[in-house]
């Protein structure tokens, strides 16, 4: 008896299995509908950048993916599992325990880092390894130290966040997420709060992750990163995905006036 014949999904390679499937996703805050019938699929090891004007719903879309934000219509699936709700109708919110099981596979990096201020860099990274993965303290410490070394912070491990630069803090935040070995990492404008000279070090860490095959969804205003690292770029405006394709197509061949308008404004602002 072999595994191959027994496998029900023989023939589909893991590479084309969708990591995230978003279909007909809609979300409102009170009266205002912020996301309107969003459809998007992210495959394993893909890097998808979300761009678009302020208020277009990029953060909200990203936060629906790990259910930091609930949604009322459509669905989000992570590796086939419905996010936030139990299967079936009428749908009900999933139990916290199930949501946590799902979130173990999905990391999130925030614009303002959100490091816990009373813990050192190492303790920040170690915390979830102990509390969630249940690693013994020593093993968790060793792993946290290895992760921080990987993002170039071997010498700053025992500093509290308040003693770190923005770029260093964001690298700690990335290490904190990567240490959990998620299948997907969501980034919400990870470099927007940084001084210009610190942006590069964070983008480099993200490029390394992408090169390692991490699946990433990145909300960003760094068009250079989107153009060079993304496999696909999705442009959001007014809660719609207006354009979705390879960076070349979105940046140079889009016939959508809103995209061209946005890119033109971007170029004007960034040239002097």
């Amino acid at each position: 008896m072999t595994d191959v014949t027994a496998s029900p999904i023989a023939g589909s390679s893991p590479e084309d299995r969708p990591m995230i499937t978003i279909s007909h996703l809609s979300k409102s805050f009170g009266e205002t509908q912020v996301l309107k019938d969003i459809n998007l699929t992210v495959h394993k090891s893909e890097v998808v950048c979300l761009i678009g004007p302020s208020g277009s719903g990029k953060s909200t879309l990203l936060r629906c993916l790990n259910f930091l934000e609930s949604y009322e219509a459509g669905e989000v699936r992570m590796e086939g599992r419905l996010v936030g709700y139990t299967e079936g109708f009428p749908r009900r919110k999933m139990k916290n325990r199930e949501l946590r099981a799902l979130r173990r596979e999905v990391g999130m990096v925030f614009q303002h880092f959100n490091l816990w201020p009373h813990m050192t860099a190492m303790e920040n990274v170690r915390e979830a390894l102990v509390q969630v993965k249940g690693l013994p303290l020593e093993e968790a410490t060793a792993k946290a130290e290895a992760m921080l070394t990987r993002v170039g912070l071997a010498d700053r491990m025992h500093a509290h966040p308040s003693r770190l630069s923005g770029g260093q803090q964001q690298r700690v935040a990335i290490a904190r997420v990567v240490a959990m070995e998620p299948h997907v990492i969501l980034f919400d404008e990870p470099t927007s709060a940084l001084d210009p000279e610190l942006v590069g070090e964070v983008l480099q860490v993200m490029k390394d992750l992408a090169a390692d095959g991490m699946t990433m969804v990145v909300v960003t205003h760094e068009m250079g990163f989107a153009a060079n690292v993304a496999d696909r770029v999705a442009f959001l405006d007014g809660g719609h995905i207006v354009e979705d394709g390879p960076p070349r197509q979105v940046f140079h061949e889009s016939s959508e006036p809103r995209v061209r308008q946005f890119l033109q404004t971007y170029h004007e602002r960034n040239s002097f």
Partner: protein
Amino acid sequence: MDYDLFLRYGPSLLRGFGMTILCWAAGTALGMLIGFLLALARRLPIPGLSWVLRAYIEVVRGTPFLVQLFLLYSGGPFIGIRLDATTAGIVGLGIYGSAYFAEIFRGGFAAVPKGYVEAAESLALPPGAILRRVVVPTMLISILPALVNMMIILTKETVVLSILTVPELMYEAQTMAAETFAAFETIFVMALFYWLLVEVVSRLGRRAERKLTSHLTQKAGAVS
């Protein structure tokens, strides 16, 4: 001043002071515990619960401690709660303090940056761990001065327990004053004792504050 008096009444005053400290410490601990649970419960998404708890807080804050204490001690037996004077004093102090502590903790919860909690949630930390490891440590920094302040206020509220004949400092001092007519000496020693307690509490509070905020105020030279 009649120093001889202090020799004669010293032991009973000291015993009273010990009793004051005991009632204060137990009452404060109880008040903090109830207050914390109240603040926590008010955050639960249970319809009406927050309203009921707020009513409790408003009633406790809106009535004099003396009245509450009488209600508990004299009214308690009517509903089957029979407490000796000291226990009633401690429980009363706990209930009285809990309303104020609940408000302090409520403010503390609200002041914890949402992002800290979201980071913890997105890392799949269980709710208990988020509370213990992230929320409480960050909120302690902002509420510690208010907590210490309330603890200090409660040191002085203990004098009210004397009317239940709890043998605390005020009670012993009144006994001494009644027996000796030495009003000034009595008040003088009492003031000294309460001041001492307050001073110790506020010093400990300042030390705790320094410890909690050390990571925010490290001198530039102290790191590398």
